[in-house]
């Protein structure tokens, strides 16, 4: 694929002559910045939102639900959506996000809005769908990391005069960081690979994945390959940075 990305496009075909023109064309095109920001901006924001919802849930599950049975039950409930086929799940989004859907209905009944909001085919739909789909990937690693924390350490911190919020920040949160990073990476990779949702549900948002498949479906292999490589490189760069955070924690730990 790397080789393909370096071939020269000629009309609707290509010549196996090495060139970087595919990359140049992309980065100099006016859409490039928009596409890149769309792609990585939405992905990172989705990861952050998932973290904001996922961490409290994982915390509650670990520390406030005491019976093993209840814990298993809740985790199973979270997995139920994955048992449903993707296409059928997609149809469900109509009835949830649509103008006559549940969210709009509930908000109108509560009097929060007067007219149904357009949720489908907007960016917000993308976030809602992505967060819902990936919440489990965030909750689970964080739950595992939190569960591993020796309760005695928390007790020790309390007796050493740490008030609850400091116990949380200094001990619990810091020790759960590997789980947070792991969850973040899972959601990142999952959303990265999802070129379909933005196209289908977010109103054809200009996203790198979409561009890749558009070029590919028009048989413009070199251009498609180049964009795919760009996607890969940027993704690897982000992953590298994320992994460094955990590493640094271990090296420079207090």
């Amino acid at each position: 694929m790397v080789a393909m990305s370096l071939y020269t496009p000629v009309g609707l075909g290509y010549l196996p002559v090495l060139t970087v023109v595919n990359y140049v064309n992309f980065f100099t095109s006016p859409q490039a910045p928009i596409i890149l920001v769309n792609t990585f901006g939405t992905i990172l924001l989705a990861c952050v939102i998932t973290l904001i919802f996922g961490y409290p849930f994982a915390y509650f599950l670990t520390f406030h639900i005491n019976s093993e049975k209840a814990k298993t039950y809740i985790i199973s409930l979270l997995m139920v959506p994955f048992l449903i086929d993707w296409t059928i799940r997609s149809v469900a989004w109509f009835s949830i996000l649509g103008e006559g859907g549940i969210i709009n209905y509930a908000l109108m009944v509560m009097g929060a809005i007067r007219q149904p909001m357009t949720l489908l085919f907007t960016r917000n739909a993308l976030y809602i769908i992505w967060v819902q789909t990936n919440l489990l990937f965030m909750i689970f690693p964080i739950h595992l990391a939190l569960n591993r924390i020796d309760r005695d350490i928390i007790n020790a911190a309390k007796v050493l005069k740490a008030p609850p919020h400091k116990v949380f920040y200094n001990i619990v949160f810091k020790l759960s960081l590997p789980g947070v990073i792991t969850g973040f990476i899972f959601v990142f990779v999952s959303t990265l690979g999802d070129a379909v949702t933005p196209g289908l549900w977010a109103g054809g948002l200009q996203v790198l994945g979409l561009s890749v498949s558009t070029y590919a479906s028009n048989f413009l292999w070199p251009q498609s390959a180049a964009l795919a490589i760009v996607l890969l490189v940027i993704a690897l760069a982000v992953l590298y940075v994320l992994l460094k955070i955990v590493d640094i924690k271990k090296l420079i730990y207090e």
Partner: protein
Amino acid sequence: MADKVVATKDLVKWYGKSVLALNKVTFEIDEGDFFVLIGPSGCGKSTLLKVMSGILDYDEGQLFIKGSDMKNVPPHKRDVSMMLETYALFPHMNVFNNVAFGLKMLGKDASEIEREVKESLELVGLGGFEKRSPLELSGGQRQRVALARALVIKPSVLLLDEPLSHVDYMLQRKLMEDLKTLHKKIGNTFVLTTHVQEHGLSLADTMMVMNTGVIEQIGRPDQIYSTPRTVFAARFVGDINLFSGEVTSRQGDTYFVKTEWGELKASSKEGPDIVGKKLAYGIRPKFIKVNDEALSLANQFKSKFSGYYYFGDAVECLFEIVDGITVKASMAPEAVFNLKLGESYTIGWNPADAKLIEKPSVIEGLDIEEVIYGK
């Protein structure tokens, strides 16, 4: 109650619905005392310590520390520090920051923290260890970090949960010496739990014997050793031979106690009138004499030398009087040298050395035989 550093009244703690860990526990600790809680596993000593620290809440009763009611007072507001049984060092911090943690939480400034942490580490013999990771340390070193960490915040009461339990013998002895020295030097109140009676006997100013959620006896170690109030306390503190019997009569200075295998004599110089009572007759192994030395003593029995345990300084010898009844005698190795296993020897002891204990345990309804022989 106000002048004692720790006081409880009828403290009750349940685990779930069926396990009563603390059953109306009432006691006081004097300021500056080295207070040792001893008892078998499950007696409630760790629970009591955790309740005192605030890690666990209690269900009924009262707990006072330095005169203040500790109901609803969280651990970070109590003038108490604790060294946990598992040490619980913070794995993501080095030794310095572990020890400094409490001081940081108390808002001390950086230079003061640096000074106090260094001093505390020197005190436990870990000067120079500041930058090390807890994961690199040996068990004994980790323990001393935990101790330094608990001491550095200068608590009124220092709680130590089984500090001697996961440590080898040499280190145990050293640790006991160190704790005693530290206690004298710092002068605050130490409360320590252990299930090994020797630790209690050597460390304690005051000892409290616990048994499934109740207090069997509190007192100075030598008091409990010489005058145990219950059979449980007698069994748990110092080794003792115990037999169940009934006081048949009293003649002059002597009580006559009938057991299923013979009649035993005990002194009755100022004793109460307990004729007819069923009780436990106890005699400590060190008071049992063999052969010539036994011949002049009022309690004398023929027995078979059935076995021994060698302890280096002393030998614990087992003498079987009748089938199933064995008397333990603690003897010097030289004296045992002349004895042959399986041979018959006379053993004896002075009635004045015997103890008569009526109460099996503070717990009501226990059969004296059960407490003597264990269930």
